[in-house]
C-alpha cells in the first residue's frame, strides 16, 4: 500500500487546459503514487478552454502537499490547490432509484424527501427516482435512509467545490 494512504478525505481542485489526454495525465500520476481516487469530477469553468478537475482521496497532509507539487509539474495544469473544508463549500449530487411498490411506504418516502429537500425527478408504478444535492454527509445520510425502502440503482457525481469569499483558489 502506498505510504500515507490512510488519512482524512482531501479535496484537490485543479484548473487544466481543456484538451484530450489531460485527465489521463492527472490520473496517471495519482495512480503511480498508488492512491485510490474516491471521487473525481471534470467540467467547465468561467474561462473558455479551461476545465476544473475536482478530486477527492484519502491521504495525509504531507502526501497531499507533495502530490500537488507533482501534479503542478504537468504542463497542462494551470492552477492546483487543496480545498480545506473550513475554507470552501462543496456539494455532491446523487440520483437514486427507490422501490415504491407498496403504497403504504410511499408517503414515508415522500416525507423523507421533503425533510432532506430532495426532489422526485421521475415516478413510475413501482419506483421513484430521487435527486439529492448537498454536502456528502447529508447525501449519505439520505441514502442510508433509502436503503430501508430498497435502492434499485444509484449514481453519484462526486464532489464539486469552490473556495469561500471573493477570491479564486489560486489568487
Amino acid at each position, binding site marked *: 500500500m502506498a505510504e500515507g494512504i490512510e488519512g482524512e478525505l482531501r479535496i484537490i481542485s485543479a484548473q*487544466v*487546459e481543456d484538451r484530450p*489526454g489531460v485527465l*489521463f*495525465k492527472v490520473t*496517471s*500520476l495519482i495512480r*503511480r503514487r498508488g492512491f485510490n481516487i474516491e471521487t473525481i469530477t471534470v467540467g467547465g469553468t468561467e474561462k473558455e478552454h479551461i476545465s476544473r478537475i475536482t478530486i477527492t482521496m484519502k491521504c495525509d497532509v*504531507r502526501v497531499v*502537499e*507533495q502530490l500537488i*507539487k*507533482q501534479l*503542478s*509539474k*504537468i*504542463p*497542462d*495544469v*494551470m*492552477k492546483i490547490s487543496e480545498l480545506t473544508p473550513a475554507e470552501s463549500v462543496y456539494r455532491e449530487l446523487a440520483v437514486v432509484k427507490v422501490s415504491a411498490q407498496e403504497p403504504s411506504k410511499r408517503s414515508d418516502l415522500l416525507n423523507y424527501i421533503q425533510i432532506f429537500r430532495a426532489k422526485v425527478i421521475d415516478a413510475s408504478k413501482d419506483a421513484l427516482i430521487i435527486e439529492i444535492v448537498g454536502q456528502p454527509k447529508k447525501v449519505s445520510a439520505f441514502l442510508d435512509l433509502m436503503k430501508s425502502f430498497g435502492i434499485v440503482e444509484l449514481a453519484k457525481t462526486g464532489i464539486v467545490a469552490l473556495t469561500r469569499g471573493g477570491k479564486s483558489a489560486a489568487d
Partner: protein
Amino acid sequence: MRLSGAKAIVESLKKEKCEIIFGIPGGMTIPLYDALYDCLSEKGLRHILARHEQCAAHMADGYARVKGVPGVCTATSGPGATNLVTGLAVAHMDSSAVIAITGQVPRFMIGKDAFQEADIVGIATPVTKYAFQASSASEIPGMIKTAFMLASTNRKGPVIVDIPKDVMLEEVDVDYSDKVKIGGYTIRSGEPHPYAIKRALGLIIGSERPLILAGGGVIASYGSDELIKLAELILAPVATTLMGKGAIPENHPLSLGMIGMHGRGEANMVAEEADLIIAVGARFNDRTIGKMDKFGENAKIIHIDLDPAEIGKNVKVDIPIVADAKKALAALLLRLGEMGSKRSENPWTKRVESLKTHFAENYKGQDKGLNPGKLMKILRGVLPPNAIVTTGVGQNQMWAALHYQVLEPKTFITSGGLGAMGFGFPASLGAKMAAPDRPVFNIDGDGSFIMTEQDLATAVTENIPTVSLIMDNRVLGMVRQWQCMFCDKRYSAVDLGKVPDFVKLAEAYGAEGIRIETYDEFEKAAKRSLKAEHPIVIDIPISMDEKVLPMVPPGKTLKEVVWFG
C-alpha cells in the same frame, strides 16, 4: 509558407538549431525521411542511422548530456516507438533533454488497432516530461518549439512528439510564430528566495561539521565553480551522488567521492557524522541515502533543488531552497564572502582527513586476476581530464563510480536513476558526436554491452570511434554478488556462459577487438585507443567472484558499511 507536415518538422528542427538526428525510419516516418533527404546533403543536419531505436534514444541522451542542448531521436510508429521507451525513461530519471519524434498511423486509423499502431502518448506519458500528438500539420512548428522549450528549461527532461503519417503529408500554411504557451508552464528564473538563503546562511555559519552533497543538478546548471568555491570557503567535504560525479574534481582535497549503497566508505561515514548536510541538485534517492528514515538523523539538512516537487519527497529537510543549483550556490557565496567567513583547519577537517587515510587501505582489493579498481586507476592515468566516460549498469558502473576519478563536469555519463543496462555503448556514440575531438570511453560489462551491442554497426558505418572496455566476468555480476551475499550463494540464472568472443564480435562488425590479460597490456591498449579513428572493443577478463565493495546492504544505514564480502 506552404509546407507539408514532414517539411515543417525538418524546418522546425533546423530553427531549433538541431544538428543531428538519431533514428531509424519506418513505414509511418517515410514522409519525414523524404523531407530529410533534401537536407542531409546540406551541412548542418546529420542523420545517424541506429540499429535499434533504444540506442537512438540513448545516443540522443548521451549527446544532450555532453553538449548541453536537446538530443533528438526519431522512430516509426508501434514497435519503433515502443523501443524508444527505455531510452526516454532513462532521460526522464536523469533529467536529460531528449526529444523523440515518432510516426503514428494516419488519424482515421488511430484507435483501430492498425498495423504498427501503439498508443505511444499513453505509454510514454509516465516516463516523459511531456507527450503530445499532432492533430494537424499547422500545429507542428508550435509543437516542436514547445518540445524544445519544455525539454531544455526548468528541470530538463524528455518530450515526445507523435505525428500521424497523414499529418506529415498534409500541406498547410505554417507559421513559425515566436509564442509558445502551454498551460501553467512557466520558465522560472531559478533565483533563490533571499529569505531561504538567509536562513541557510544561519545554519552554515552555526555548523561545526558541514557536508556538501552534490547531485546531477550541479552539473546540469554548470554550477561546479560555485560549488568548489563554497566548499573551500567553509571547508566542507563534498560527497556526490552517482549523477553528481564530476561536480568537483575527484582529486580535490575536499572531494570524498560517491556516497551511498556502493559509495565510498569515507563519504558514507562523513554523512553519518555531519551536523549539516547541504544537498545541492540531489534528490535523496534510496541508493544514495541508505535507510531512508535514518539519513541525516543527527544533521540539519539544506536542500537546494530546482524542482519544488523534490523538496520533502524522500527526506524531511530543514531549509528548502527552490532554485537553480548554480544560482543558489552563487547567492550563498556572495553573502558568505561579504561576511568574510572563510574557515581554517578545524577538528572536523582533521576528522574527515583521518577517515580518508583510515579507509585508503580497504580499496586495494584482492589479487585474483585483474582488479577492477586498479584498472580504473590505470585508465585515469591514460585519459586526459576532459575525456568522456560512459558506463553500462551493474558492477562495471559501480567500479567506475568508486575508482575512476572524474575531473571535469559532464565527463561521466551514466544511467543513474533508471539503471538501464545497455546504456553505455550507445550513449558513448552520442557523446562522441557531441565532442568529436575528445576521447570517449565506455566502461561496460559483458551482460550490459550485449544488450545494445548491435549498434557497433552504427559506430562502424557512421564512423564514430569510441572505445568500449568490457569488464568481462561472464556473469550478470551485480545480481550474482547479491546472490552471493544475501541468498547463500544460490546462483540463479546469472551465468552467461563463455559466449560471445568479444574480439571476434567486434571484428564481425568491422570494429577492432583487443583482448588484454595484464595491467600492462591494458595500459598499452588504452593508450593506443586514444588516437584510434575506428571503434574499438577491449575485452578484459575479470574474475566472477570480484565484488563491488564496500557496500551498504539494502535497508541499512550508511554507517553499516560492509568492506569485505
